[in-house]
């Protein structure tokens, strides 16, 4: 289904993997839970939950504070997690890895520092038509503040970006391009490397929202040549409250701090404060230490499974689910891009997505129903909401079969 998939990868031992996720043995409304909502939040493997508990039980203290052995241990574990993230996305230096609360905070940070530095009255910010609200609203706020305008890369009916006119859309007033790597609604894998190259040809930096990409495909920020690459821990089988901003060091060095406070200063006097270098400059206050360590553990888990094997498994499930759901009369899949990650949005004639979501819930099937924080896409496709199933490495063909039969039951009820 996708050129990024390695067809020769050894299949995953899904039965063994499922034992790492206690939630998967829950019963909902008398039915075994079928978790098809990893695009909302990925489940954490037990070893991550246990690693975080160990920190809280045996190691809890603050990081980068004082000379105690405990503080040094916590700092070492916390910084080791940063190194795991660096390696995971192929960054050159851990100085380029800034901890944030998540994708949303990462983008706000860039908009409020880099954006405020670069964008002025009459300038343009170019976004794709399939951005999540997290990659729209911070730029809209900046544009309002500065008197700048937002421009949009349009979409085809299949859910692919129309790049024919990209060179015209990037003008001499464009100050930054924001593009999602994998659409959380349509599943489209965007050709971000090409978009970045074409923006760079005009001297324009690019921020990539990788929230839905990192769980599904191997990302190499150096190969992409992304200026900024952002994602959340909890979509990556990690905890909530932790996220990552990757930025090229030259950008991070040139950016002013965002939040002020402890941990980000070199020296403070009543007259003047000086700041430490990136990434610390952007990390005021006490961070979510357990969450950072937990994310590092989840990355170890995913790498042990193998990103290529995960991608192959998920694409196989996506192809199977696409075939099965497409055969249902009155059901329409939104997003038919050639290159897709395992996110499947659909609408059914005469059944609102929320009703579908509730009825699937009654069958133990957990999906997302709604506008997916991407209302411009709903408007583009003329629907109020969609139902979205997303597949992870622990899902099976049987999960897809349960989904399909639950959808058929819902259609029967509404007949």
């Amino acid at each position, binding site marked *: 289904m996708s050129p990024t998939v390695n067809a020769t990868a050894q299949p995953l031992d899904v039965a063994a993997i499922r034992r790492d996720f206690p939630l998967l043995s829950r019963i909902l*409304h008398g039915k075994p839970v079928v978790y098809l909502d990893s695009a909302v939040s990925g489940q954490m493997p037990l070893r991550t939950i246990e690693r975080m508990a160990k920190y809280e039980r045996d190691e809890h203290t603050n990081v980068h504070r004082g000379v105690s052995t405990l503080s040094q241990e916590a700092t070492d574990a916390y910084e080791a997690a940063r190194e795991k993230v660096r390696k995971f996305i192929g960054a050159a230096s851990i100085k380029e890895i800034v901890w944030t609360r998540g994708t949303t905070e990462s983008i706000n940070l860039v908009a409020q520092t880099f954006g405020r530095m670069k964008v002025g009255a009459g300038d343009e910010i170019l976004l794709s038509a399939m951005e999540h609200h997290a990659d729209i609203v911070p730029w809209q706020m900046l544009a309002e503040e500065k008197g700048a305008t937002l421009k949009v890369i349009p979409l085809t009916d299949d859910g692919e970006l129309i790049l024919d006119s990209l060179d015209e859309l990037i003008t001499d007033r464009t100050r930054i391009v924001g593009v999602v790597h994998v659409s959380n609604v349509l599943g489209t894998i965007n050709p971000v490397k090409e978009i970045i190259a074409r923006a760079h040809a005009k001297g324009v930096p690019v921020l990539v929202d990788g929230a839905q990409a990192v769980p599904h495909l191997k990302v190499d920020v150096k190969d992409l040549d992304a200026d900024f690459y952002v994602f959340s821990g909890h979509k990556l089988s990690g905890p909530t409250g932790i996220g990552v901003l990757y930025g090229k060091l030259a950008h991070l060095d040139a950016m002013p701090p965002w939040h002020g406070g402890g941990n980000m200063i070199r020296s403070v006097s009543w007259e003047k404060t000086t700041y430490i270098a990136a990434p610390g400059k952007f990390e005021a206050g006490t961070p979510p230490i357990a969450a950072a360590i937990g994310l590092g553990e989840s990355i170890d888990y995913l790498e042990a499974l193998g990103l290529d094997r995960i991608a192959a498994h998920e694409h196989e499930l996506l192809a199977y689910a696409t075939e099965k759901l497409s055969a249902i009369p009155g059901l329409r899949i939104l997003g038919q891009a050639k290159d897709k990650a395992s996110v499947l949005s659909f609408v059914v004639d005469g059944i609102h997505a929320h009703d579908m979501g509730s*009825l699937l819930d009654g069958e133990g099937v957990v999906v997302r129903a*709604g506008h997916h924080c991407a209302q411009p896409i709903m408007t583009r496709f003329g629907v109020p*909401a969609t139902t979205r199933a997303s597949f992870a490495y622990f899902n099976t063909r049987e999960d897809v079969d349960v989904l399909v039969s639950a959808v058929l039951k819902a259609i029967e009820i509404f007949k």
Partner: protein
Amino acid sequence: MTDPRELYQQVILEHNKKPRNFGKLEPCTHHAEGYNPLCGDQLDLTMVIEDGVVKDIKFHGSGCAIDVSSASLMTGAVKGKTVAEAEAMSEQFRGMVRGELDPATQAPLLGKLTLFSGVKDLPSRVKCAVLPWATLHAALKGEAEASTE
């Protein structure tokens, strides 16, 4: 926990498929728009009130079956009632779906609208059932917009 499937009774499904009082009254004396930011459901409510009585009422918009059937049944229930009675029904309906009032004993004005009482066990759907009533309340108070935030 209530099975979500139990909510989809025949009356609700039937009103969803064929909503009563669907459309817009022009001219009208009272008007409000309801919005559920969680799901994007929208409801446009127009009313003609004369001498303190709801002479006519229509709704328009898009939403889920719970929202649409609630609006359909609400418009039928308040038509012909006084403004005070409509407000009292609104109070009882909202109390019922929030689980604060017992539908059997504490919601005498609601009649068949008590079939929405099961919504109280599905917190994510309470806002869907309440949206028409919140919009009605806003229209009666002379407010242009209602939100279930």
